[in-house]
């Protein structure tokens, strides 16, 4: 029996992104399930499900990515085939519409498991990966968030604070784990 499970990120998701996040993961899981139902492979299914979320600006991946301290987009992606443990990944790649597909190309077209930075973008050119300019990868919300964080120096740790130990001003704290 084919099965697919997806996530759209674990963090302090604001109410403004809540409904979009739920709809996005519902769509992505359905997209992947259709691939499986048509006899597609698990690799095909996870690639299509992740691409669906990369193309959805509500998620922090592909279109919807955020800005680093230099105001640039750097994306990471990985894919793995459980048949033979083959895998491929890219790190700090820039201006790529679907990094998961680039990661798959690393898995299938190279002898490597991870290519980063300029090398990843050079490889993207070799395989004709679809590119997008930074302003089409980043949403206005992400740009405002960047301006706020640069101003107040919010740390990575605060963004992923455990909900049962850190009190926030605007978000009620729920006890324990899910």
């Amino acid at each position: 029996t084919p099965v697919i499970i997806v996530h759209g990120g674990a963090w302090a998701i604001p109410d403004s992104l809540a409904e979009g996040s739920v709809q996005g993961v519902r769509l992505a899981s359905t997209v992947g399930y259709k691939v499986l139902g048509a006899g597609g492979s698990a690799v095909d299914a996870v690639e299509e499900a992740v691409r669906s979320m990369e193309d959805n600006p509500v998620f922090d991946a592909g279109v919807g990515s955020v800005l680093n301290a230099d105001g640039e987009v750097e994306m990471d992606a990985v894919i793995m085939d459980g048949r033979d443990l083959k895998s491929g990944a890219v790190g700090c790649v820039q201006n790529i519409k679907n990094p998961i597909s680039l990661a798959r190309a690393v898995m299938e077209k190279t002898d490597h498991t991870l290519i980063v930075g300029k090398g990843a973008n050079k490889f993207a050119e070799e395989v004709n990966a679809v590119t997008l300019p930074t302003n089409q990868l980043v949403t206005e919300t992400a740009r405002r968030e960047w301006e706020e964080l640069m101003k107040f120096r919010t740390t990575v740790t605060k963004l992923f604070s455990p909900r049962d130990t850190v009190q926030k001003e605007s978000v009620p704290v729920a006890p324990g784990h899910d």
Partner: protein
Amino acid sequence: TVGAVALDTQGNIAFGTSTGGITAKRPGRIGDSPIIGAGGYADNNIGGVSTTGHGESIAKVCLAKHITHLMEGGMTPQTASETALTFMAKRVQGSGGVVVLNDNGNIGRHFTTERMAWAWVKDNVLHHGLNPGEDFSENV
């Protein structure tokens, strides 16, 4: 960060994880996402995992491989998910979430952050949730 784990009709398992980084992160910083065993893992003989959350913490405990090991030892995907995330919280004070499948297609999903959007489909039934404790279902 987004991710997916799938089991196809041939019994093959795969995972994929993708992230757009963290706002205002140090240029060149990479978290767990592209690292095998941290951002995810897939082995037909055991199961598959995709992770999300505080990347530095996830990388330190090799979260995905940790969960895979726990399942290999006989834990269900759900128990393995909860055990591994509890371990990460205690050992490195990090939070995150995971989605997991084992080689029989059983589901595991858990998160220690405030929210995680998740969904899974099996036997034409879609389950989804966002807040702790949620599990809505519908036919697809």
